């Protein structure tokens, strides 16, 4: 079976791969890679083998061998690696791979035992990635890098165009510049289009040379592990290079997609070859007014569009609270209800000052003024304080009044008794056991205590009427933030091992490069 697979490895793919074929390649590659990364090596190996049966690309063989090696099924691993070399004899890492195969064979035979296997496993990278190998430092041992190989398809219409693929050998090497000395870039052996390469992850520069009277063109691609990338140059029509930039980085760029039926064309800054003609370009960023324009691209020309996005003239207040439910009014108008468990209540407001009122049934109403900035979201957290219990205040006030009244009455009675006692004392008839002495004293004490208690109750009542023991509801306002895009996911972060130009190489097929003498990027 394996022999069949190896021997049926084609040297070249058809002139132009269809979109369906390309999707099938990618599905197989993605399925195997996902299983491999999940540690399900047996299934990964089987998937790569099956992919190779359907699409006889050497990368599938290598990836299957890698999965077998991880299972320590070394004989099968050796078999797949040998088949890979047979299918891709010009592979950049062929020499170190052969040495590794030899080590694996020794391990498989058990002649050297576990020590040899260990040496091979641990020292594989060092022994295979030598400086003498030229590009070996970029074609690292699969054991060390655990990197599956990817597939790069370079196709032209008509086929037969010369293709040069260069690999960046050092991380710090600057981008390739046509027509100049480019140290740090090394050419891989290639043939005329169509070209199918099984490559390690890395950065490559692809040059489609002059062919059939059409000018050469080039592109720089970043290639991740286990990817399938197609570069298609339809020669016979000039393509145009559209560069889009804006004063806002990572703004979404939509091209000829008014209905937003497709993912964004790119994010700023972005440049890509597109069909010449009239295009509708839309640049959007959260918190900014959309920039929409039409651009006419001449054949073989280059057009740069630089958008200056203006902030929207409104801002958003994102409000939440410490209660289960609050009502929100802005400038006297009810704008909504926030409930616990929901996200923050977002209220779109014109930039400027706004009076915001947050209320709840059992809380003190929060009134504050917010400064809404253009294009900014203002996180507002309402710290609602419990509402005053007026019942307690009234009770205290009434009690205070009653107690003070009773105290005054007691004081008056005490004074009256004392006056009587004074008269009796002056008359010489006051006896020391007169019950009015005790009664008057009790009234006096009652009056004093009552006045004190009444005063305290009065103060408490006043306090509860005016201020309350728990304070006012308060608001905490965080620093304004940029708008998010709640209705759309953020674009994935750009990875260093992905292509820089074009940003979305997978979509190159949607915007074929027109072979043109002006396709080097110059503006018409």
């Amino acid at each position, binding site marked *: 079976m394996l022999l069949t697979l190896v021997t049926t490895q084609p040297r070249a793919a058809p002139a132009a791969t269809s979109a369906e074929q390309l999707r099938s390649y990618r599905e197989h590659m993605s399925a195997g890679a996902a299983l491999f990364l999940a540690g399900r090596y047996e299934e990964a190996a089987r998937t790569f083998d099956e992919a190779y049966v359907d699409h006889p690309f050497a990368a599938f063989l290598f990836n299957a061998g890698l999965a077998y090696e991880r299972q320590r099924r070394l004989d099968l691993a050796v078999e797949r690696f040998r088949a890979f070399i047979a299918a891709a004899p010009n592979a950049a890492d062929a020499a170190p791979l052969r040495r590794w195969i030899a080590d694996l064979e020794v391990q498989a035979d058990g002649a050297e035992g576990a020590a040899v296997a260990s040496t091979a496993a641990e020292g594989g990278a060092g022994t295979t990635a030598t400086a003498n190998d030229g590009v070996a430092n970029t074609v690292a041992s699969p054991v060390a890098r655990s990197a599956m190989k990817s597939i790069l398809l370079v196709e032209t219409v008509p086929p037969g165009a010369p293709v040069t693929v260069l690999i960046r050998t050092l991380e710090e090497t600057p981008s390739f510049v046509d027509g100049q000395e480019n140290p740090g870039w090394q050419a891989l052996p290639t043939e005329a289009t169509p070209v199918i390469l099984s490559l390690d992850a890395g950065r490559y520069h692809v040059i489609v040379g002059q062919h059939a009277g059409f000018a050469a063109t080039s592109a720089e691609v970043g290639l991740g592990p286990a990817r399938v990338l197609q570069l298609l140059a339809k020669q016979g029509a000039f393509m145009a290079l559209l560069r889009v930039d804006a004063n806002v980085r990572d703004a979404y760029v939509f091209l000829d997609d008014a209905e937003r039926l497709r993912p964004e064309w790119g994010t700023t800054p972005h440049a890509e070859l597109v069909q010449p003609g009239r295009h509708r370009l839309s640049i959007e960023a959260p918190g900014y007014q959309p920039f929409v324009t039409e651009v006419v691209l001449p054949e073989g020309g280059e057009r740069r569009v630089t958008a200056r996005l203006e902030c929207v003239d409104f801002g958003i207040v994102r409000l939440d609270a410490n209660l289960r439910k609050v009502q929100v009014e802005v400038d006297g108008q009810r704008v909504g209800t926030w409930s616990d468990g929901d996200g923050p209540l977002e209220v779109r407001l014109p930039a400027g000052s706004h009076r915001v009122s947050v209320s709840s049934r059992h809380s003190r109403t929060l009134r504050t003024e917010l400064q809404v900035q253009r294009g900014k979201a203002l996180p507002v957290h309402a710290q609602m304080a419990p509402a005053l219990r007026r019942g307690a205040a009234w009770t205290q006030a009434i009690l205070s009044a009653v107690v003070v009244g009773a105290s005054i009455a007691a*004081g008056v009675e005490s004074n009256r008794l004392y006056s009587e006692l004074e008269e009796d004392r002056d008359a010489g008839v006051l006896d020391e056991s007169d019950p009015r002495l005790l009664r008057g004293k009790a009234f*006096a004490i009652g009056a004093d205590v009552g006045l004190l208690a009444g005063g305290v109750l009065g103060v408490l009542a006043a306090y509860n009427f005016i201020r309350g023991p728990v304070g006012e509801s308060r608001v905490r306002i965080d620093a304004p933030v940029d708008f998010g895009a709640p209705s759309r996911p953020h674009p994935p972060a750009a990875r260093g091992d992905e292509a820089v130009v074009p940003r979305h190489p997978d979509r190159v097929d949607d915007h074929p490069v027109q072979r043109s003498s002006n396709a080097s990027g110059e503006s018409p």
Partner: protein
Amino acid sequence: MTRRRHATLSALVLLGCSWSRFDEARDEAPVLILEQPPGMGDGFGRSMATSHIDDDTALFVVTEPGGQAAAEYRLGTGDDPSREATDLGHCAEKGAPCFLGSQVAALPRGPESTVGLTHCLLAGLGRHETSDGGHSVGVHTRCDAGAAQAEFTFALPTGELATAAEELIERGAGDPLALAASRAERPLVFAVWPRAHQAWFYPPGQTSAIVVPLPPEMERDLGGSAAVLAIDHRHLLVAAAKDGERLFLWRVDARYAVETIGCLGGDAELGRALTAGRVDFDAADDLVVSDAARVSVFSGAALVTVPATADPDCTLEALPPGALLASFGCGESAAVDGCSSSEFGASLAVGDLDGDGDGEVAVGAPRMRVRGERGAGAVLLYDVEPSAPNALAEVRYSSSASRDDGLGTAVSTPSIRNRQILAASAPGAGRIALFYCGSLGPADGSTPPCR
């Protein structure tokens, strides 16, 4: 500034309601109260007597005549008497039966036959167990002997009386005597036993009795009140008749020879209470007598000069001019009324309450209505001055008077240093009220309660 004003205002409000002023008022109360000791029974304060010697004053308070309970209080020399009775053993010792008299007498100093005895109370008929195992029957006496008490009896004048007393005591039936003493350290004691139709006296310092001769018309008519007046070196003995219309008078000379002067007739219940004291400015005691409606003051100096008579009509014709010093009836004040049923004159006492040198007459009216309280009782004071001999000077009552207190059932004028205060019993309340001050004086406000 505002804060200080508020603080001042608050302080004034608090001061206005300060309770400490009531404590001060109590401390400055001019009427002090002696409460009835527990277990003394009813009638506490039906009779009182007082003795004073060496700045030490004792007040004896006894219960119902025929009863067996008395309390002795020490009033001290200032305005803070002991509220607790210092001796409750008077006429109450086990094995020494004693029956309280309707009047009791107090002696500042014991008989000459004793040494160091002071503040003696002659309570009534009683029996005393002697140290030789025997016993004696006579007028039961208990004196202070330093830290202890001494009891003995004044002998009855005759063996027949002793036998009669013995029989009564054996039967447990008390028969009240009426005892009176003159004002002296060792006074003359006059005793009247109405049911025995006998009267006798003990010369000062003596425990042997001298019988008072009774005319036939007097023999069966002796009442339950008596008085002794000291006039120069002579004494005048006065006893009320049982029929309540006559007073019997005897004169005792310096050698204690006694002769009957005669009798005085008067209105109903004449002699319901008798007392003696210096009412006018002479050195002789005067006689104060109450009847159903009035109180009369007779000059002792005049009475002692009345020639003896055997006239059974008991007219006052023999009295010399000016013998009746004053005669006054019940009076009312804004707080005290109800003279008609006041029992005005139920008790009498004479004392120099205002410190002017002569005595004021204190008349108990135990059924007076005080501030609407029926029977609360009051004591009416009469300052028998030549300018207004019959005028009511002051009405004293207790500010805590309540119904049926009966203040004034008995009155006395204990001496406190150089002045006298008024003591009035209120049996209904079980207390004795000591009036330290009043409008009568002392004018100099010499004691704290008298502001």
